[in-house]
């Protein structure tokens, strides 16, 4: 088992490094770093001065290693656009994205798990079709549109929730629903099929013959087995939220990492975008790793 984890970790690190290099290369090719620093009003000679001054004329590999070694020492770089160290920027904005991510997963759990259970307990009935219908619908709805729709319905027509911003947890409800909705289909389906498989199995039949029935049977006995793969999918979905929250944060004016990334790209701020892409990829990989470990723990055949 340990060998499995170690193997996976190596892949994680390798991927993170590859991605950070590709991003570095792409960003510095798409945007002229000297111009980004020098600003809008700079004259040509001033841009060249900046290029030499900040060392942007050195070969890209050298600059990448400088960046990478800086990151390992905890120096995330300076943002010329936001006038702050990237580290502080990230630190300030991270709590909002983390809150949003956690709350969205809660929403997913609240909607998908009960639906999945209901569907599994009543297979091929109207309830089942309804649940699957919701899954199909949720997959087809564009998330930015859902966000705007939620604002129109629940913040304007019926002024229950605030329109935007991130001052209180109440502000996070609508965005969490929007972000969580996209994870509902896979989780619900998995819960449903997982439970369906388990319900047919021998030991459930044994439990039933021992007198357990109804709710007790479902939750206490069946769920225990069916829920673990769902947890691993939830972990993966949680990993998706970092980087996947860009649009939701933008629509709801939440000052998290996603919005930071969006505005940094539009503001041609290379250091910030570089770090953020790295963070998003890393979060995804970590959660994926956790899911892989969980699955390997359950199913020894996966421990290659």
């Amino acid at each position, binding site marked *: 088992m340990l060998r499995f984890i170690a193997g996976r970790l190596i892949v994680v690190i390798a*991927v993170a490094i590859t991605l950070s290099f590709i991003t570095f290369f792409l960003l510095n090719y798409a945007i002229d770093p000297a111009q980004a620093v020098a600003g809008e009003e700079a004259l040509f000679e001033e841009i060249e001065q900046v290029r030499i001054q900040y060392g942007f004329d050195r070969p890209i590999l050298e600059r990448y290693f400088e960046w990478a070694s800086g990151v390992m020492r905890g120096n995330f770089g300076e943002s010329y656009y936001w006038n702050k160290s990237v580290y502080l920027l990230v630190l300030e904005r991270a709590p909002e994205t983390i809150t949003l991510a956690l709350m969205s997963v809660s929403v997913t759990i609240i909607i998908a798990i009960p639906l999945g259970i209901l569907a599994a307990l009543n297979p091929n009935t109207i309830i089942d079709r309804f649940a699957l219908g919701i899954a199909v619908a949720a*997959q087809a709805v564009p998330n930015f549109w859902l966000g705007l*729709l939620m604002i129109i319905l629940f913040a304007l027509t019926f002024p229950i929730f605030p329109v935007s911003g991130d001052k209180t947890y109440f502000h996070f409800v609508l965005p969490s629903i929007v972000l969580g909705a996209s994870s509902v289909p896979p989780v619900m389906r998995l819960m449903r099929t997982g439970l369906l498989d388990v319900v047919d199995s021998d030991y459930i039949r044994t439990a039933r013959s021992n007198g357990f029935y109804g709710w007790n049977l479902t939750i206490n006995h069946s769920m225990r087995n069916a829920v673990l793969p769902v947890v691993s999918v939830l972990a993966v979905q949680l990993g998706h939220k970092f980087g996947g929250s860009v649009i939701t944060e933008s629509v709801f004016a939440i000052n998290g990492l996603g919005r930071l990334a969006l505005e940094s790209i539009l503001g041609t701020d290379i250091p910030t975008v570089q770090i953020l892409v790295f963070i998003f990829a890393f979060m995804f990989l970590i959660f994926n790793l956790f899911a892989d470990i969980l699955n390997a723990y359950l199913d020894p055949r996966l421990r290659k």
Partner: protein
Amino acid sequence: MIFELFAKRLFPQAFNNDLSELEPKHIFLRKSVNHLGFKFGLTMLLIIIFLGIFGPHIIGISPYEQDLTKRLLPPIWVEGGNWEHIFGTDGNGRDYLARILYGTRISLTIGFGAAFVGMIIGISLGILAGYFGGWVDQLVNYLLTCQLALPGLLLAMTVVFLIGPSITVVILVIGVLHWTLFLVVSRSATQRIRNLDYVLAANAIGASKYQIIFSDIIPNILNQIIVIFTLEVGIAILSEASLSFLGVGIQPPTPSWGLLIAEGREALFFQPWLIILPGIALFLLVVSINMLGDGLRDITDPNSKIEIKSKVEVPISNLKQNINSKK
């Protein structure tokens, strides 16, 4: 339903009561006739495609014609609307119905185009990985993980920023970010098929790798690939809408639905239909494609429990006859 009538008229042999003489495609047809989702999805999709191609001609209004004196007119069901512009007009006085109808073409073109690009990349890598195994497989696995970990939207934005937005760039960028499902499916299918007896036999008699790939592997994964393809079209359509929404996809005045929603954003309060209508269009298109895809998957899955209903009574005497004649 109408669907069944169509199907029966076009392929009468499929509805033969003697089930043992049905070919695979007839089985497909019989199953599909009973799958509600498939029928619904296909019908809706065909309607949307029809509207997209012929709609603008039918209503006779151009989606590009501006009239600055007739801006932001409401649709017919809101006070102030008129029949001249059934869905109202946008900020430049262009007829909204025309724009939404025309947007179908954009979504479909990009959806199919990007899914196609993704398919080519995914299948190639998947077959390579599944066939050769070993370090090739490891490498492809590594590429897969890289691809999954990439924050796709951000990278798409950067690339479009770099090259400049156009339909081709958007198709390529989305396609290059969405090949993972194709890869997974074709790789596992290739691995499975590769070890089957008849492939090993083909190898033994000297068939080249490419022959095996094309004549044995590809036809067998085709079913699954088609299913994935339809699902990816839906995903690609939504991706394009997101990119256009953020301003780094299709450029104005081309009426991409995502762009229409972005343009309507400022008028959220007073002209909400600018946002609601294109969103509904997106939803309907993607839902119909997904239902089609799900239906295809259910129908082509050999383990699925779809019945092939036979509606005609077979008298016992006939049965006896058949049994006797087959001796």
